[in-house]
């Protein structure tokens, strides 16, 4: 690897890393609860709500995120109502906001599936025990269902967190200069494709190792049987 290129590229990529981190953090912090809510919706008794949540998941899991981000950023921008509504335009007008929105919507769908099955597989008796105490649905959820489901879902969810970090790279297609955005620029400036690519990958890996290790520790902390 060429040292010149490395020293030239790293400052740019570090600037990008901040944006990547921002997108990923918001993506996870907002996408996680959102996904759980949708996951609950998919298991709800209300047919309409269930169908809405099911369709949302099918659409966002079934189509490439690149297309989703394009439609959110370029597609919706063609609707003049959205362009003239300050709130909506704030949401999708700025590349960064649109990227976060897309990441949240995308990870929400996957998170929903992970938690739907986790909720489904909880031993029925444990929930009945909570209900039989007269705890409100909210407390049954926060004190029994969620803690148990989380333990089961954590290994699969950790993958989702890593995916969010990586998928945030698609923000570069809508003018947001995160790691990949800078990387693309550096690559075509210097043609040192492999070198820059490897540095980029190392940055993503570093972030993900932190995230995955943190989640692994959390998992260990939470485990109670064997």
């Amino acid at each position, binding site marked *: 690897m*060429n040292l010149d290129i490395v020293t030239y590229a790293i400052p740019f990529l570090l600037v990008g890393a901040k944006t990547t981190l921002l997108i990923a953090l918001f993506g996870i912090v907002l996408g996680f609860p959102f996904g759980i809510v949708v996951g609950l919706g998919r298991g709800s008794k209300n047919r309409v709500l269930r169908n809405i949540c099911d369709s949302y998941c099918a659409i966002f899991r079934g189509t490439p995120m690149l297309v989703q981000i394009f439609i959110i950023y*370029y597609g919706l*921008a*063609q609707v003049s109502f959205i*362009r003239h509504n300050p709130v909506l335009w704030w949401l999708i*007008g700025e*590349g960064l906001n649109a990227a976060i929105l897309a990441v949240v919507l995308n990870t929400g769908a996957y998170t929903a599936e992970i938690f739907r099955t986790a909720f489904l597989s909880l031993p029925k008796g444990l929930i009945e025990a909570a209900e039989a105490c007269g705890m409100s649905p909210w407390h049954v959820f926060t004190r029994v269902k969620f803690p148990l489901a989380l333990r089961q879902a954590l290994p699969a969810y950790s993958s989702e967190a890593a995916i969010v970090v990586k998928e945030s790279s698609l923000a*570069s*297609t*809508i*003018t947001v*200069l995160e790691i990949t*955005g800078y990387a*693309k*620029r*550096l*690559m*075509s*400036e*210097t*043609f*040192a*494709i*492999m070198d820059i*690519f490897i540095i980029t990958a190392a940055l993503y890996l570093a972030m993900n190792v932190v995230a995955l290790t943190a989640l692994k520790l959390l998992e260990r902390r939470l485990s109670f049987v064997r």
Partner: protein
Amino acid sequence: KDGVLRIGTEGDAPKFSMADPSGNVTGFDADIANGICAELKLKCEFVVQTFSSLVPSMDSDRFDVIISGLGITAERQKKIDYSIPYATTPLYFVVAKDSPLAGLKSLPEIEKAIEGKSVGVATGTTYAKFIEKRMPGVELKTYDAVTQQTADLASGRIDVAFGDSPTWMDFLATPDGANFAKIDVRIMAMDAPDVLGHGMGIGMRKGNTELKAKVDAALCKMVDDGKVKEASMQWFQDDYTIPCKK
């Protein structure tokens, strides 16, 4: 390989390199490639690849040359060898018809007026570098594809778009483009060779001097014969040829 010249190209650049549904490549780059093959008495074989894998693929001998409108810059020459430049596209700013910028007449005027405005360019191009270097006061936005750049121009996310002439020919003819106009200042590579480079060249593996000599000769012949001009006129209705310096 014997008797074959393998050519790496992007395949998704309108007018330059277009892979049709059945895999044939047409466009300005393809014409240049076919011309070279004819000169060297080789059979052309196109390999269509995304931009980011063109260079690594050539390094691992998936093809011999890259003909994909590559701009020649000193920076890139550290990584690959170039043939002589054979063409260059003029660059234009595009703004809304009713914008005060529309009537500007020279580059310095533009440089002053554009302060603080958001400008869209294609990612990693020489002209992106040009804006970055020459007009540090603008808010620069980069796009992977021209269609994205024009979409943002149309939806008002950027005030000014900067790009090569063929792009604008197409865009200004569309319904979206009807509200926009070129600023009538033609910017050529020669205006700022330090950033804009020296025009388009054919990329080759480093140190492949034998091939470079052959390709240079063939290119020079094509320039002199007017073959390059012919292709340029066909695709761009303009002559982008750079004369061959002997």
